[in-house]
């Protein structure tokens, strides 16, 4: 494992020393992201560290870019070359990995399944965990991520910090404030960790308050404001040197969140997330780790149109999800084989209502998600064979049983109107398999090749949506219970070269998707939403494909100077040759980084080509090319072991008016934005 540690710590050589300390397969750590080909390992191997189990010896989050802790989680994710963001307002962007959005991804927090409660995807899971509570984000592509669930695009698991047992430093923490000009935004954050010999407790919190932002050219974009706080408490206890018990609680509450691209805003979005974990590190050499976890979470989401003018009719749109689940996994080593096995299960309920209030008439009520229960059990096994220091092969497979049922009779009656009988449960078996081969052919060179087969179940919306309005294409969506499971044959390839001064990494993927789920216009149906273009019903496209790749280059002519360049491109087509909707265009980020012991200065140019490949049925418009300039700097002062960090910058220096292709509603992104963050770490 250690010898196999593979990847490049990209972008900021200043921090590469930190990364090398870690037994992680790091590739890109600017945003605490660990991207892996094979596996993710975020803890130190026992003998090398005084504290058994998780420990503070390599807390990358502490050492990293202090700016990250002021960013939103989605912004950090977007620094990954294969992740883009779908933007609908000023907050809570939906991550898109390999051209695929949240329905096709696993988004987990510490391996916990959590489902957004908004039918309009206003609350992706990433909005419920904050960077100052995040240790790492692991991104696994395609079926390689099936440890966390069946998915097509891959898995994004956000690992929270958790309490750190480190009696030599009983009290550690951080306080910080930040301001930014485009939205007159204020951030405040703190974290505190208190440790005794056998236990520790950590608390952290974030408060953010942002006004409507100003776009390039000076226009204020209404309904991009938001306010939120996030608090987390983590407690860890080690009854023995080989056992760790951990409890986590995360509470996230957002209020008055504007969604400029949608006809409604969010009144509130509240999540409560609980997890209880037990880890055991057996004394047997072959049995490396056993971990089990139980968790539950609830999300309560409510939309709001009361601040909008020209609302034809006021409506309430609350939504809820309630999830509980658990998993148990074991990691074993038999000679060259490292075997990981996981059993997991969860139960989730999703319900969303819509009530419209016409004048002097009875309210109009319907269930946009008809109280849907999902019961899921999965089994994952991975065998990683390390032939020698240069070659390894990994097999993984997952089998998952999913039972979906509508429990509200009202929902069953509603669906009957569309000649759908949803009174009986929907059963599916989902199969995922992956094989990866990795080789280090020479000094500094490495490469890998993976092939996979993935299946994913349709989402609640895809199966049971009842007149869910999509503001992008202007259609009301109706689910179809019997929509077929989406399947994909996948290939992922990567190559990397690294020497003292130069690093290059290229990855490519091709996903051939069968029974691609997409709404198809049903002209026999009347739209419900006033002004909507019509009705789309979930259907399977015979096939579609998604392909793309990225290239990352970095050159350090001097020890303190690094030039880097990242390009990414995704291309998606239906079997009929039409472009798949919402596929990001070619994008390039170049930067010059000057680093110093105490900080850095960075000048960055972010540019994207136009996206002429649009899906007209999805109402896509051509997005023009853009380029923006960003400048960032950071410096810290030391007071003994305490550290005061200042970081600031100006984003979109030239105040360009631009938008990205995945942004909804043609709404421009923020214009010139100066920001300054101050944090004190002790």
């Amino acid at each position, binding site marked *: 494992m250690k010898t196999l540690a593979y990847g490049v710590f990209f972008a900021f050589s200043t921090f590469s020393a930190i990364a090398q300390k870690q037994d992680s397969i790091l590739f890109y750590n600017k945003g605490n992201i660990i991207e892996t080909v094979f596996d993710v390992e975020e803890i130190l191997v026992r003998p090398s560290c005084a504290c058994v189990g998780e420990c503070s010896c390599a807390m990358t989050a502490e050492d990293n870019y202090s700016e990250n802790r002021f960013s939103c989680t989605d912004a950090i994710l977007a620094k990954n070359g294969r992740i883009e963001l779908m933007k609908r307002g000023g907050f809570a962007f939906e991550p898109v990995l390999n051209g695929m959005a949240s329905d096709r991804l696993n988004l987990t927090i510490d391996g916990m399944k959590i489902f957004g409660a908004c039918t309009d995807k206003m609350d992706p899971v990433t909005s419920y965990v904050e960077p100052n509570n995040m240790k790492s984000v692991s991104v696994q592509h395609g079926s390689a991520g099936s440890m966390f669930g069946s998915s097509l695009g891959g898995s994004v698991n956000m690992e929270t910090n958790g309490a750190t047992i480190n009696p030599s430093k009983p009290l550690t923490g951080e306080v910080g404030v930040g301001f930014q000009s485009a939205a007159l935004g204020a951030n405040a954050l703190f974290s505190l960790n208190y440790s005794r010999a056998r236990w520790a407790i950590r608390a952290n919190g974030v408060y953010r308050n942002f006004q409507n932002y100003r776009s390039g050219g000076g226009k204020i974009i209404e309904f991009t404001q938001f306010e939120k706080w996030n608090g987390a408490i983590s407690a860890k206890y080690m009854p023995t040197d080989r056992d760790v018990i951990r409890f986590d609680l995360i509470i996230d509450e957002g209020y008055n969140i504007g969604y400029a691209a949608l006809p409604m805003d969010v009144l509130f979005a509240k999540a409560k997330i609980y997890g209880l974990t037990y880890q055991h590190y057996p004394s047997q050499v072959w049995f490396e780790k056993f971990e089990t976890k139980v968790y539950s979470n609830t999300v309560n989401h409510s939309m709001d149109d009361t601040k909008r003018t020209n609302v034809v*009719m006021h409506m309430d749109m609350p939504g809820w999800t309630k999830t509980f689940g658990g998993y148990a996994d074991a990691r074993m080593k038999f000679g060259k084989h490292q075997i990981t096995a996981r059993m997991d299960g969860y139960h989730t309920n999703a319900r969303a209502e*819509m009530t*419209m209030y*016409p*004048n002097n*008439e*009875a*309210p*109009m*009520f*319907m269930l946009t998600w008809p109280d849907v229960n999902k019961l899921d059990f999965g089994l994952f096994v991975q065998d990683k064979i390390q032939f020698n220091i240069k070659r390894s092969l990994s097999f993984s497979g997952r089998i998952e049983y999913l039972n979906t049922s509508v429990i509200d009779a*009202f929902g*069953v*009656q*509603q669906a*009957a*109107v*569309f*000649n759908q009988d949803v009174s009986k449960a929907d059963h599916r078996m989902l199969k995922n398999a992956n094989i990866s081969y990795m080789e280090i052919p020479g000094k500094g060179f490495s490469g890998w090749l993976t092939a996979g087969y993935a299946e994913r179940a349709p989402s609640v919306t895809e199966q049971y949506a*009842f*007149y869910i309005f999509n503001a992008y294409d202007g259609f009301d969506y109706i689910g179809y219970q019997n929509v077929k499971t989406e399947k994909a044959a996948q290939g992922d390839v990567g190559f990397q070269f690294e020497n003292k001064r130069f690093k290059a990494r290229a990855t490519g993927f091709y996903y051939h998707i069968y029974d691609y789920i997409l709404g198809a216009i049903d002209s*026999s*149906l*009347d*739209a*419900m939403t*006033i002004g909507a273009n019509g009705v789309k019903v979930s259907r399977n496209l015979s096939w579609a494909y998604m392909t793309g790749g990225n290239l990352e280059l970095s050159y350090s002519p001097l020890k303190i100077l690094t030039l880097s360049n990242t390009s990414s491109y995704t291309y998606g087509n239906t079997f009929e040759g039409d472009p798949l909707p919402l596929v990001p265009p070619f994008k390039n980020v170049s930067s010059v980084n000057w680093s110093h012991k105490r900080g850095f200065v960075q000048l960055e140019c972010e540019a994207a080509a136009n996206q002429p490949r649009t899906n007209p049925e999805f109402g896509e418009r051509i997005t023009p090319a853009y380029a923006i300039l960003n400048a960032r700097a950071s410096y810290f002062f030391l007071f003994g072991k305490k550290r005061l960090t200042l970081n600031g910058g100006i984003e979109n220096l030239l105040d360009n008016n631009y938008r990205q292709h995945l942004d909804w509603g043609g709404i421009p992104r923020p214009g010139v934005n100066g920001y300054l963050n101050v944090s004190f770490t002790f």
Partner: protein
Amino acid sequence: MKVSMKFLIVGTALVSTLFAGCKKEEDPTPSTSNTDGLVMIASGYTDEGGIKVNLYSTDSLYSRYTNFFVEVRDSASNTVIEDAHIELMPMMDMTTMMHSAPFENPSSTDAVNGLFPCAVVFQMPGDMGWTLNIHVHEHVNGGEGEVTFPLMVKNPDPTRTRVVTPLNDPMSRLIISYVQPMDPKVGINDFEITLHSRETMMSFPGIENYTVEIEPEMPSMGHGSPNNVNPTDAGNGHYNGKVNFTMTGLWRINLNIMDGSTVVDSTAYFEVTLQ
């Protein structure tokens, strides 16, 4: 009304117990009928034949398609008679003129649960003026006579009967009545209307072989619902289909009534509110 019904039931039960006591050897005749959920509208004796007639309905009376249940009893023994020939004649006396209404006599001489189901379409409301004449020929004792009840018919909200001038026959009138769903739900509902023609002031036969199209819509939203089944002729002026509602609130069911390809009326509609 309910109180009087209870009295009646208790009274009937008492009386019948007494009589049952006297004629133990005879066939057990049901002395009560199942009037659960029904409202007594009127009660009286026929002019001849010694028959007591109780008139029930599902609710107090409104100008709409109205189901009636006639209970026939022997006036002396008060036993329920289950074999009788019954004929209705509704009448509206407007002082300057009189007219009848569409009606449906019991389809059989055999009672159902001790009651003879029948129906009248009150095409207009009236606090006074409406009467219902019931002619009974009971086949148990052979008695025959009639009774006339004055009725109070209120105006329902929303409207449940439309009287329109047919485009293909301006001298006639077309009476369209909403029958069900009485308790509409989100989802699929049985839909039923009746169509009657005013041939004369006294004759309102049910219309057969018309084509009816329905189009539900939410007036405040402007949308409809899919997969409705147009009502088709079920005999006796009744047309049955399916109407779908996708959400609660106020719905308007628009009607298009045709005789073959000739439009007879396309103005009529009924409104329903789903709570």
